[in-house]
């Protein structure tokens, strides 16, 4: 399993509470249009992800994150920089 795939699996776990009943998650799931994450929930998601990976996520990356896959790739980069 690649590092990217490991991160994806962990993200699915974090995102499970945000998903609607029966909604399945994939790397193409869109955070805004599919999961309906508005600004407060995005902040909550960032905090939980930061704790899980022991990283700080800059606010600057948010405009580049549309899907779960985009988010995983950003986390991959941030964990590599450590």
């Amino acid at each position: 399993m690649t590092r990217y795939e490991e991160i994806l699996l962990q993200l699915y776990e974090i995102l499970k509470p945000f998903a609607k009943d029966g909604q399945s998650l994939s790397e193409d799931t869109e955070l805004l249009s599919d999961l309906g994450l508005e600004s407060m929930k995005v902040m909550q998601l960032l905090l939980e992800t930061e704790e899980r990976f022991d990283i700080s996520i800059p606010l600057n990356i948010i405009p580049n994150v549309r899907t779960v896959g985009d988010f995983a790739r950003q986390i991959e980069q941030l964990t590599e920089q450590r």
Partner: protein
Amino acid sequence: MALLEKFRQLAEAHEALVRTSTDPFRVTIERILSPTEAIVNGRQMILAGTNNYLGLTFDPECLDAAARAVYEQGTGTTGSRMANGSFSGHAALEHELADFYGRRWCVVFSTGYLANLGVISALTGKEDVILIDADCHASIYDGCRMSGAEVIRFHHNDPGDLHKRLRRLGERCTNTLIIVEGIYSMLGDQAPLSEFVALKKEYGAYLLLDEAHSLGVLGEQGRGLSEAAHVESGIDFIVGTFSKSLGATGGFCVSDHDEMELTRYVSRPYIFTASLCPSVIASTRAALRILQTRPELRTRLWNNARRLYDRLKELGFKLGPTLSPIVAALFERREEAIGFWNGLLEQGVYVNMILPPAAPEGGSLLRCSISAAHTEEQIDRICQAFESLRGS
């Protein structure tokens, strides 16, 4: 989506709000009577949402200074200081503020908002990191965005979380600016400043403190939280505003770093804005003198704040965590806050209504800001209005 299409959702939300409420975003003060009273919607109101902490907007010394300046220097400067030159009052105010804080340098900006934009965007760039308290004011967030630096939030007032994030940054800490506020504008709580100063020293970072709501309010001399917490020398940059305790408009930054003076040449919000008009400079200078010579105003402010805070607490309202001239009543439901705010207006009390997402943690707030100019009777009338609406 067509250019203007994005406004449709906003228009719908606004229409829904004003179907059941006075429009909170378009309250017009028809006639201002004093620092604490005005005619609004044809009715006399107690103003309890002005940030006019020392009540100096009608102080005779400030009025005289402003009026004299208008007649002697005209109504405006009609341009930026870089292009048109500075009036002697701009330079004098900068000297007086630097002296007041015991700092080498001061730069004055045309608003408090621009001070944050101007200072943050000048100090930091792409290679740098900014660590901001999550509850910082929008002007700080906008300054961060303008700077192009990497922006990381830490949990509000949480030195443990800041510590963790500094540790993660490692060697980049020397390129890091930490930003916190003295008193937070929504709940009136204060930063644990001594702990933040200790952390910035341990990691070799820089610390910027926004004293917008604490200038004139905290500290024996009124210099704010840095004075009250006895950590002034640990703060690299102090930003403040003239639009609250000093009763005018404008902003400033003081520092001992010589580079502060050089920010004038790179700070776009400083360079490309018309400078403060002479009357504003004059009334601000007068207000700064009063702030230093009339400490009884601070005593009165805190007595008034305590009177309101204690009474609302006694009545069972959920308030901000600490006593402060900002007394915020928290409501879980947005509709409840809207109904309550309209009820207060009907009873002749004007406070600020803060709806999600502007309030911390997604709640709604009715935010009172207290003034030294409020009388005890006015504070009691505010309390009575809150009491009569309780449970309604």
